[in-house]
């Protein structure tokens, strides 16, 4: 591999490494959000229906 080929490979690898790190961070965040939704759902299911106000979501 020539020096130019090494540097070009490094440049493309850097691009994909950064995009990959970004995707991993977003995936971790979505996992945390899914956990929070579960937590909230458990709280709602635990409460008697008459005690809470109906809220429209979506």
């Amino acid at each position, binding site marked *: 591999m020539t020096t130019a080929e090494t*540097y070009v490979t490094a*440049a493309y690898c850097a*691009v994909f490494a*950064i995009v990959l790190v970004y995707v991993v961070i977003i995936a971790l965040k979505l996992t945390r959000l899914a956990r929070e939704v579960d937590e909230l759902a458990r709280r709602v299911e635990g409460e008697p229906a008459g005690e809470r106000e109906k809220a429209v*979501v979506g």
Partner: protein
Amino acid sequence: MTPQGAQLRAVGRSYRIPLPALSAAALGLVTLALALVFFVAPNDADQGFSQRIFYFHVSIAFTAYACFIVGAWKAFVHLWKRDPLADLESYVAIHQGLIFGSLVLITGSIWAKISWGHWWLWSEDQLVLFLVLFLFYAAYFMLRFSVDPGPQRANLSAVYALFGVVLIPVSFLAIRIAKGFIHPVVFTRHGPNFGGWILVAYCVSQVALLVLAYTLYRVELAGKRLDERLRRLREVLA
């Protein structure tokens, strides 16, 4: 509908292209772009193999500019219509712009090392102006997170984002108005400085990176919207 219900609905918006289709398109286009860059486009007569960095470097730079412009446009929409989602969209677009901006600086530095023998040249106006633009938008996050969430933060962020967009034409035109420069000019008044497969590979790379940026924007925005809805839902249930 209850006021809380109205608040919960306020952060939602539907899009014409579903996210899985967009992700598949981004993956396909990036793969096609890489195939064209490495297997089809010929070596540049002047720069040789190292010129292959340009396909993604220039495309990423234009994508970063596009993200900052979208961020400014959404900031303007927020100030005009007081749309809470526009503030979130502006923030996410600027975040994308900063990620792509860091990629421009990294790939540019690698290319500079091969061609000029230096990782960075402070004498190059375009490099310095792009760094100024990058740092300006990096400071956007410092400003945004130094203010408590609410209308004041949204308004301050929007005004800052609108000021930043002025730097984009300055950064883009710097190379064209400079008297002495060594940074290559890709686009002149007479069109692109290349043709044939090089132009095809560049165009596909540009489209691929714009679609990739839009996909990442939508993914991040979906996460932010979900986060916001959860926060409001928690407030309603408290």
